[in-house]
């Protein structure tokens, strides 16, 4: 008996893993590639080119008209792309969630297939299409939005689909039973219950489509500058300080957006969406 307990005790000591330690790899990653760069950005943002601390860069950012225009344009592109994704994605997700057979999985895969196709390939194909329709080189704003919608549509469809598929169909039947026509069933039941999906879809699309300058650069031959390309340009000119300020402001915008949408979805939970 004693031998056994000793053995067990030894075994236990040699495996002193706890759950917290499983986080170590990620913590190291986080430290090296997120926290440290972030600190560098903060450092650069608060130092001028000559190396003195101060708010010079912020003053520059908020007084420079080009910056302001670029931020505004980025937000506008993000908004239009998000609305575009929502209007295309919602009906798709809705229809997919209503298909009864096994075909549903295949169709869903088809709709999210762009996600797994190489980006360069997709971009080239879309460019060809745009030039075929005579848009390339002319409608820069439209091209950017089309590119963003094309690229981020799956990120809108997936969260919407997963919420819609989970909604209890008997809720819709109950509304139907209580006298609601199909439009009322949708506006009173299906739509409000899918709000968590809409919110996470918007978060997934709005922020990236505001900043992913590779798309705007590719489809407009750098004729449209969004916030991402501005940062890239400044880094290219070795103006680390200005670039860092913009990056920091962008980060703030992201925090605010997430806080607003996140807070909203929390409120939804409080009303019992998880039922």
């Amino acid at each position, binding site marked *: 008996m004693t031998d056994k307990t000793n053995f067990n005790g030894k075994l236990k000591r040699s495996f002193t893993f706890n759950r917290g330690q499983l986080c170590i790899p990620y913590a190291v990653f986080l430290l090296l590639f997120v926290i440290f760069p972030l600190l560098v950005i903060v450092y650069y943002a608060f130092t001028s080119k000559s190396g003195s601390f101060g708010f010079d860069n912020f003053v520059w950012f908020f007084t420079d008209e080009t910056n302001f225009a670029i931020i505004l344009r980025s937000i506008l592109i993000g908004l239009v792309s998000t609305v575009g994704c929502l209007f295309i994605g919602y009906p798709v997700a809705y229809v997919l969630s209503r298909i009864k057979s096994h075909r549903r999985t295949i169709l869903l895969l088809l709709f999210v297939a762009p996600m797994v196709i190489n980006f360069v390939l997709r971009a080239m194909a879309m460019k060809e299409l745009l030039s075929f329709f005579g848009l390339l080189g002319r409608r820069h704003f439209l091209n950017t939005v089309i590119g963003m919608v094309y690229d981020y549509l799956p990120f809108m469809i997936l969260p919407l689909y997963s919420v819609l598929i989970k909604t*209890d169909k008997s809720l819709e*039947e109950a509304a139907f*039973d*209580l006298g609601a026509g199909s439009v009322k069933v949708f506006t009173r039941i299906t739509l409000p219950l899918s709000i968590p999906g809409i919110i996470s879809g918007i978060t997934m699309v709005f922020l990236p489509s505001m900043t992913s300058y590779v798309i705007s650069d590719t489809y407009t031959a750098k004729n449209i500058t969004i916030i991402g390309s501005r940062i890239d340009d400044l880094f290219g000119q070795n103006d680390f300080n200005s670039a860092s300020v913009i990056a920091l402001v962008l980060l703030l915008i992201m925090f605010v957006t997430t806080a607003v949408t996140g807070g909203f979805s929390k409120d939804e939970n409080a009303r019992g969406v998880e039922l």
Partner: protein
Amino acid sequence: MHKTTENIIELTGVTRIFEDGVAAVDNLNLCVKKGEFVTFLGPSGCGKTTTLRMIAGFDKPTEGTILLNGEDITKLPPNKRPINTVFQRYALFPHLNVYENIAFGLKLRKDPVETSGKDGKTVVKNKRLKKADIKAKVEKVLKMVDLEGFEKRSVSTLSGGQQQRVAIARAIVNEPEILLLDEPLGALDLKMRKDMQLELKEMHRKLGITFIYVTHDQEEALTMSDTIVVMKDGVIQQMGTPTDIYNEPKNAFVADFIGESNIFSGTYLGNKKVRFINRNFDCLDEFEKNEKVDVVVRPEDVTLVDKGEGQVGGKVISSIFKGVHYEMIVLIGKTEIVAQDTKERKVGEFVDVKLEPDDIHIMAKEFSSNKYEGYITKKNTVCFGDGEFDCDVTQLYEGSILDEDGYLITKDGERIDLTDVDVNVEVGLKDISISDDQDAGGAIGNIVSIIYKGDHYQLIVRTDENEEDFVFDTEDTYNENDRVSVIIPKDKIKLSLKAEIKR
């Protein structure tokens, strides 16, 4: 406008076949009287919920018509029917509070209101309910379900019983002509269920509207209903008052499903005498002389008396205290009979069983033999019931023999090729056995029904392809849904020609 008719709902020849070809409801004919409390009772998959969904309008019949107050509503969508449903898992709207849930239907309602127009003519306008009216109605119904003051509560904070009450309130606030309830008490615990049963019955009395209730719980059905509709495989087995269904079950299935019962195979001897468990008993029913019958005796009707005072003796092999009574099993020969009595008999005691004529209920036996249509193959086997069996084809022609080439030689010397000849096949209930070895028999199927008949079980094995049934008696125990092969000895397959063979 309404035609005066006593029946609020009439289902005529209603059939619902699902996409996979399964008939969930098969040629159902049913009338429900105004103000009745009707219960559809049956095991899962018997078609009771599908029937309810067709009355609600969620499902459309493949064939047949549904009349409401004499008017055809078969194709009317649910939102146009004066019928409301209480769903199995309540289906309360999680994003709305209690008040908003209950007011949901009222807010959508448009009532025709007569107003006098400018030229003095009366104009009928559809008007929505006023907010104050909605509020009054919701408050009234909340009071009825004992949930006053719960208006602002989120439905997710309610207990199961409270959610149940909100679901009922949400349906009855619309003052429907019929209230449909789809196993509404299934999720509640026993005590709560019993209370709700009585409350629902009281509510039915107060509201005076028609209730159509679906359940698989026979006790629930007996407690609440005016009429019970017992269903199996999409077909009504019996319809009647709880007393009728309990005391006069039409077949072994109903007897087995409603309450506990002893079911025996017996023979009607004529002259109001029936023979089962190797004794003759007096009875009240009348059947054809020597007809095979099923005999049902309810456990509470079995009286155990001292040795020598009853009709048949046996030994008590089990005795369990059930609160109000003792449930005892008496072994008579090879047959077990379950008895319920307030007086305990000890295990091992020898007692007599006494059955009065009105304790014995006799039903026509469902199966006396299996009948199929089949055909003879090249190998002189017979195909029927989704399987192929060895058989003796010479029985088709008296005095015939088979020659070396497989041709049948009649006694007149005629040579007949039997390939693809259509035949009628008959197999007795005692002539079928089954095996777990799927290659052992001629057909393969699942055990779909096991009914205990005192000293043996009556099993039904159903094949997959054409749902052919093999009904047979066995003393061995099997499990429902077991996959087995069906074995029939060569000499037990009775064949007859469907038509004279053209020569």
